[in-house]
């Protein structure tokens, strides 16, 4: 078995950033493995799970809604409950919200347009499993590409999440109409992160930015630590 921590990338019908995620994870030290959504369990030794970007089930019903009840999601839920690190990128974030593993929901962009651009994000909370390699207040450039990325929660929930430090990433500008310019949130335990920007598309300076590598490398650190705990 490889010394590299095993990171499971879940593939739904309509996922399209799964291979990029696998490649990017490999570039920061992970052993990526792809897991089909109809599987009932994660591979033995899984240290972290990534739900990739794409358009699972053609965004039918609501983005992420149908994927959120796919067979593999029971295993992902159990993995998260046991403290396993789970990262949802773009459609993966939508899936995690629909699965109620993360608070809030992603709504159509307020400007009614698909947005595809480099976004500048501010790290709000660096004391977090996924942002350990960043500092609070640091600005990261990571691309976004989505039509339904406006994160929303009711005001009471939003205030509570901010007070608990669960709003970990915000856009420095209004990108899509997200409440509070929220780009990424973690669950209360801090081991599940969802974000609309694509860290897997920002792991090489030649492609504009390597800032996404900071998040993915932190995920790989966490995967290694979780594998030791689980073993």
């Amino acid at each position, binding site marked *: 078995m490889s010394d590299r921590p095993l990171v499971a990338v879940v593939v739904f019908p309509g996922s399209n950033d799964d291979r990029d995620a696998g490649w990017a994870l490999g570039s920061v030290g992970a052993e990526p493995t792809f897991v089909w959504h109809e599987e009932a369990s994660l591979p033995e030794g899984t240290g972290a799970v990534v739900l990739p970007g794409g358009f699972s089930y053609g965004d039918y*019903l*609501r983005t992420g*809604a*149908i994927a959120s*009840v796919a067979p593999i999601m029971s295993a992902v839920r159990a993995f998260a409950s046991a403290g396993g690190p789970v990262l949802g990128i773009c459609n993966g974030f939508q899936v995690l919200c*629909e699965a109620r593993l993360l608070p*809030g*929901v992603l*709504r*159509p*962009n*307020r*400007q*009614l347009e698909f947005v595809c651009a480099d976004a500048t994000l501010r790290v709000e909370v660096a004391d977090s499993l996924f942002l350990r390699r960043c500092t609070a207040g640091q600005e990261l450039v990571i691309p976004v590409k989505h039509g339904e990325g*406006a994160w*929303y*929660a*009711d005001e009471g929930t939003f205030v509570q999440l901010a007070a608990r430090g669960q709003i970990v990433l915000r856009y420095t500008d209004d990108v899509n*109409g997200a409440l509070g310019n929220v780009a990424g949130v973690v669950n209360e335990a801090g081991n599940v992160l969802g974000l609309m920007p694509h860290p897997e598309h920002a792991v090489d300076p030649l492609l504009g930015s390597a800032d996404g590598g900071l998040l993915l490398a932190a995920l790989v650190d966490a995967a290694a630590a979780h594998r030791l705990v689980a073993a």
Partner: protein
Amino acid sequence: MKATIVVRPKDGILDPQGDAVGHSLRKLGFDVAGARVGRVIDLELDVADADAARAEIERMCGELLANPLIESFEIIRLGEA
């Protein structure tokens, strides 16, 4: 048993799709102050009892058909016809 369910954005929730539809209707010259867009779901259930069917549909809406954070649902038809 056949059922029709309407799922719509809750009051006060921004509805870009409805805004786009309203905007296009106004461009066509219609006097439309606002539009909201939801969805209609027709179901056929193997349940004979209306109360049981209603309870089942409410569970379906809670688990998948509607997201209670942003959507409300209404059963607008329930019967054999």
